[in-house]
């Protein structure tokens, strides 16, 4: 698990730092950042050894949901585990995300333990 390379996608620099800090405290050092869905797709093209995606939903240019759909529609990236981390907590949102084929879903604000458990659970299920 320590050799994973993460792609963290969020338009909020605060949230990116918080997620990255949490990942580093878990022992993960290989982390790539993106500021929105478009940027994230570009990063996936360049960094071909990304193992895990953590993405926000509401972002400019391309939302996290649209980004997830793009990832799932590309043969090169369709099996990447994806954790959605978002303020959206309505049941409709969760179902929409599951239909887009995210592996797991966390509602902000989250605890470091919650993110750790979700990552471990996703990795054990694939």
């Amino acid at each position: 698990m320590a050799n994973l390379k993460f792609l963290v996608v969020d338009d909020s620099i605060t949230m990116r730092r918080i997620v990255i800090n949490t990942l580093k405290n878990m022992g993960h050092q290989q982390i790539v950042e993106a500021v929105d869905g478009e940027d994230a797709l570009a990063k996936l093209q360049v960094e071909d050894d990304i193992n895990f995606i953590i993405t926000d939903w509401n972002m400019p240019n391309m939302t996290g949901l649209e980004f997830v759909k793009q990832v799932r529609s590309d043969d090169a990236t369709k099996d990447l585990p994806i954790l959605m981390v978002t303020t959206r907590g309505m049941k409709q949102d969760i179902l929409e995300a599951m239909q887009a084929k995210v592996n797991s879903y966390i509602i902000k604000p989250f605890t470091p333990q919650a993110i750790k458990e979700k990552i471990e659970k996703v990795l054990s299920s694939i």
Partner: protein
Amino acid sequence: MKKIDVEDIKQRVSEVKALFVLGQKIMPVLEDIFQFIVEMHPVLDDINSSIKESSSKMPKAVDKIINISNATELATSEILDHVDEIFKTNEKIMSEYKDNIDKQTQLFKKLILDVQSLDKNEKNEKKIGEILSVSKKIYNLTLNKSTIEEKNNEFEKLNILANKILMALQFQDITSQQLQAANYLIAQVQNKLGKLLQSLGEVEVEEIITNPQEFNENAQYQHDVDKQKMADELAEKYIEGDISDISEDDLSDMEDVDDIDDVISQLENSNLDIGSKSSGADEENTSDDESENKS
């Protein structure tokens, strides 16, 4: 000579008379309406001025809200820098403490061995006893298991507290979205007022462009364990394909029954594979659908 139809004339006179009677009844109403319009005119002028003034102030309100958001982001970034320092310093102190403990343990072992190797005559025995007694006291202060464990717990506590600060800083992202939602509303009002003023030929008002996809208007800073639990249960049910267990009660926060029926229909008709390697053919079909939707 044309025959005069008296009845026809009488009829027409009656009609004209009726018109005059009607006119007399309407006149006071028309006078009241004219009076109302005359009185409303200055009020409408005031409203027009207020709309222009408010319309000119709204971009300032939008800017102020953006400034608030930027200021909180800057302050949060500074706090994050300090929290990073706390983590690094704590880790450094922990590492140094561990090294010190290791060194002290080695030195103690050497001390005990050296003391034990001294000649045990009557003169030395008392000194040896004193040295061992002092050594034991030092050991109890710094090297015993519970002391070390206590110190490690304190380091861990610092880490936990720093993490709590980190997590609380999520407020910045959440409040930023709430501010964006407020800005969006102001922009909508501004744009509508602008169109009204433009239609009255008054001023040219620049439309404020906002994107509601960039924020969640329902974002809340709430430590709601039940909400996450609900999300987990719903996701689990979806992954297991256990659609029949998603009752109307589960979907009760949706807007109306039609939405619920649509979602249930969609779920029942959808392929139920989630980014795992286990499903082969189904994933092919699903990705074909997605390509179609993308185009």
